[in-house]
């Protein structure tokens, strides 16, 4: 098995894509879950404000998602563009 420089780069980029999306999914997953949990608690305390609370939850989760999207973009770049 001859390993050329080009091969190493391609292999590294694919492995890196996997690591990027893998690690990148951890943070948003935990954070968005925590946001959802606290939102449920808030709705439990104050069901009348459910609409506002749900909207705030979704807004907060969208912002938390941003780094997950960065990870997805980099992973796709590493797979298809590099």
């Amino acid at each position, binding site marked *: *098995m*001859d*390993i050329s420089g080009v*091969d*190493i780069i*391609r*292999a*590294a980029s*694919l*492995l*890196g*894509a*996997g*690591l990027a*999306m*893998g*690690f*990148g*999914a*951890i*943070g*948003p*997953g*935990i*954070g*968005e*879950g*925590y*946001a*959802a*949990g*606290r*939102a*449920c*608690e808030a*709705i*439990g*305390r104050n*069901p009348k404000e*459910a609409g506002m*609370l*749900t909207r705030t*939850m*979704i807004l907060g*989760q969208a912002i938390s*998602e941003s780094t*997950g999207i960065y*990870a*997805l973009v980099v*992973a*796709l770049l590493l*797979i298809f563009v590099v």
Partner: protein
Amino acid sequence: MALEVEILVKGAAYIGAGFSVGLGAVGAGIGEGYTAGFATQAISYQPEKTGDVLKNMLIGQALAESAGIFALVIAMLLVLMDFGSTTMTAVALAGAGICMGFGAMGPGIGAGFPAGMACEGIGRQPGAGGSITNTMLIGSAICQTSAIYSMVIALMLMFLDFSSRAFNPNAAALFGAALSTGMAAIGSGIGEGMSAGGAIRTIARQPDSTGRATANMLVAQAVAETPAIFGLLISLIMMFKVYPDSHTIIIAASLLGAGFSMGLGGIGPGIGSGMAGEFALDWFGRSEDTSGLLTRTMLVGQAISQSTAIYAMVIALVLIFVI
């Protein structure tokens, strides 16, 4: 230094055994300690309930132990059994140990939550002891399912014959399969345990909400289970898709990347969905009218939390099929 294949296989088996029982001990240790902590707290508040609390503590700890026992069994098999002697076997055995180790860690930690909350709840509300223990058993058992997926993948890696396949890249496929199920089980195990803990806290507070709380606990745990199921799916795909021989390391790296992507990608969403379920279930029993609203919000929140697990699965599938 020429390494004979038998030495490689034995070495890989022993390292795999180390990972298996070592990581498995992490989960059971943390979970059982957490349970004992809450048990002693409950006894300090209500010393006359010591008998009930101790009984539940021991049952709950036994459940947390079960994932550790799976890990021990796999480790013993790896140490004591004779396996074939190909380099493919070496990779498969190391992968089996790592898969079971990670797969036992999450459920072990997760089983501590329902058991701890059960001890606390029985201390506060011994009349509801039956419902609390039942829900603890159900919640913990569902928690252990991810450990069972990992054990199935580990046993398949150990006992199925892969030697007819080309080493490069199929060895990387096997190792990636091990990572995928093993690591994704961490998140699901911990998350489902958290949800079960929340459900038990509600039942202890309002014993008449037992039916609804248990039903919603199952729903929350089902969503938290999805990363483990994605992980299992990716593992099975990687184990059973046979790759032709390759002269480059590109496909091997891609398959390893797929394993890391799905494996690591299952951790966060599993924990997050479980946390969402825990808080939602905690507030569930306090008012009958809001339970529908709480369930809906919980499901929306959990679904958004699962989004990165789906990205991770898509990247894994791209790395498996498109490269």
